[in-house]
């Protein structure tokens, strides 16, 4: 073997071995720095200072911080102890301060901040501050008013403030017509299921994001289950009052003329009638957010299960 060929073989082998080793080591480094990395990015927590340091490229820096916020939220949500999101609010604050026109950060950022853990950071007040800052900087974007009203309604049950947000949003040029209806509905009967259904339907129809759409669909299904179970439970009670015993099946309720057909949940699975007369869903894991129809002692999964078809 010639000397040159020997050197080529040795150098080539070294190249591949060291490339593989560096990739493996990089994975170990990432693993050992996982917790520290995001803490580090917040050493400069002042958006003003960051703006100066970005040398005018704050748009790019805002995009990077927004990506970091998304990664942090996603990472924490999948972590075993998915209850702490303390870096989320500062990351979003920096992102929006660097680029106040980055409306996606308000829209999704507030959705990350507002819901209670593990679905979000459980900081609805900070989410409202974020939306208000977004509206201040983007007064012509009706989505921001809609999101603000949504948080007031869903997380804080403040129907007057929610109605006000929807009403203000409806005055924005090119606002979606449903904002006017929502404002009126909210002012009239904020807390009922029909209003909730309308809000989630509006979200389902207007969002372009797959995750938000899946979340809205799951909430709509949950509202339907809650309604179905309440109606079925009512029929079971009437049957009990008429006969003095619990029905053994839904067929008995059907024969008694109390329901029509075999009741099925929104996923097409039949509801279950228990010997004690309670009505339950067949698979509660597939129906997150439901309040009724849960088996006794049921423990929901850490993360709500969304269906791929949504």
């Amino acid at each position, binding site marked *: 073997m010639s000397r040159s060929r020997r050197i080529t073989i040795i*150098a080539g082998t*070294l190249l591949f071995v060291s490339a593989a080793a*560096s990739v493996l080591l990089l994975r170990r480094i990432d693993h050992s720095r996982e917790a520290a990395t995001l803490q580090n990015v917040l050493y400069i927590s002042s958006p003003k200072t960051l703006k100066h340091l970005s040398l005018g490229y704050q748009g790019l820096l805002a995009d990077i911080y927004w990506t970091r916020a998304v990664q942090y939220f996603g990472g924490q949500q999948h972590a075993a102890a998915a209850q702490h999101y303390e870096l989320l609010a500062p990351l979003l604050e920096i992102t929006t301060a660097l680029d106040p026109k980055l409306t996606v950060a308000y829209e999704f950022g507030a959705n990350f901040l507002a819901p209670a853990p593990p679905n979000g950071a459980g900081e609805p007040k900070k989410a409202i501050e974020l939306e208000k800052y977004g509206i201040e900087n983007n007064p012509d974007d009706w989505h921001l008013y809609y999101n603000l009203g949504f948080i007031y309604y869903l997380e804080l049950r403040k129907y007057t403030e929610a109605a006000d947000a929807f009403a203000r949003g409806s005055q924005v040029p090119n606002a979606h017509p449903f904002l006017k209806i929502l404002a009126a509905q909210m002012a009239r009967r904020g807390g009922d299921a029909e209003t909730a259904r309308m809000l989630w339907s509006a979200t389902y129809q207007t969002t372009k994001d797959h995750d938000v759409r899946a979340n809205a669909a799951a909430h709509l299904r949950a509202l339907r289950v809650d309604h179905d179970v309440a109606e079925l439970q009512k029929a079971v009670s009437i049957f009990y009052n008429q006969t003095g015993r619990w029905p053994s099946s839904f067929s008995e309720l059907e024969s008694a003329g109390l329901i029509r057909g075999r009741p099925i949940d929104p996923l097409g699975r039949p509801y279950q009638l228990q010997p004690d007369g309670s009505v339950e869903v067949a698979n509660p894991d597939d129906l997150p957010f439901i309040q009724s129809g849960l088996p006794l002692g049921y423990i929901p999964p850490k993360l709500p299960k969304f269906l791929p078809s949504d």
Partner: protein
Amino acid sequence: MNGRITHIATNTFREAVRDRVLYNLIAFALLMSGAAVLVGQISIGIERLVVINLGLTAVSLFGVVIAIFIGIGLVSKEIEKRTLYTVLSRPVRRWEFIVGKFFGLTGTLVVNTFFMALGVFAALLYVSRHFQHGDGWILIALYFIVLQFVIIIALALLFSSFSSPLMSAVFAFALFVIGSFSEDLRGFSAMTHGITRVLATGAAYLVPNFSALNVISSVAHEQPVSNHLIFYNTAYALFYAIMAISGSVLIFERRNLK
């Protein structure tokens, strides 16, 4: 290390000193003393932080600039001046020339960093009047900066072995910038799907990871650096440098120098 590599390394070091590379130490000394004196007058409570952040950032940036601009000329300058033919006409192999050049410039930057580190500690002593327990971590940050230089020198050599000095500088500097955001790059790739994910992940792992080598902010806040990270970073920098040098040896071995 064999004698021929040692000779080439020593000559590279001497040449760098003759090229007045170490003059940057004067600019660094002026920057540090100016910062140490001024910061106490214009700010409250962050004198120590500013000296550490500014000092270590300057050590890193000065070194990176030297590593790139000297590194890219290591091979091309020798070809241009035709001194390479004199070297290779002696019993020196091409790979020994590359490895010698690498060690020579690494040595230059280690010496340069040593003097700059003295400057950082002197400025720190001036503003704090005494050293604190956490100041020891600054040495780790400096060690990581040297590891950064090792990777950049190897990359500059790699580009220098097949490209013009200008393009080599552009490539090396671009990789330095991209490598500084490598963690974000890997984060972006994790969010993609399908073939984009494969390509993005491949690219993210191919670029050097400078973000893990930058612990300036955390040592400024007296945060400890784990032994694991020190070990992994050391091994990573060495393997990455070996990879880049192997690449330049492969290219240089096949290069037609006639």
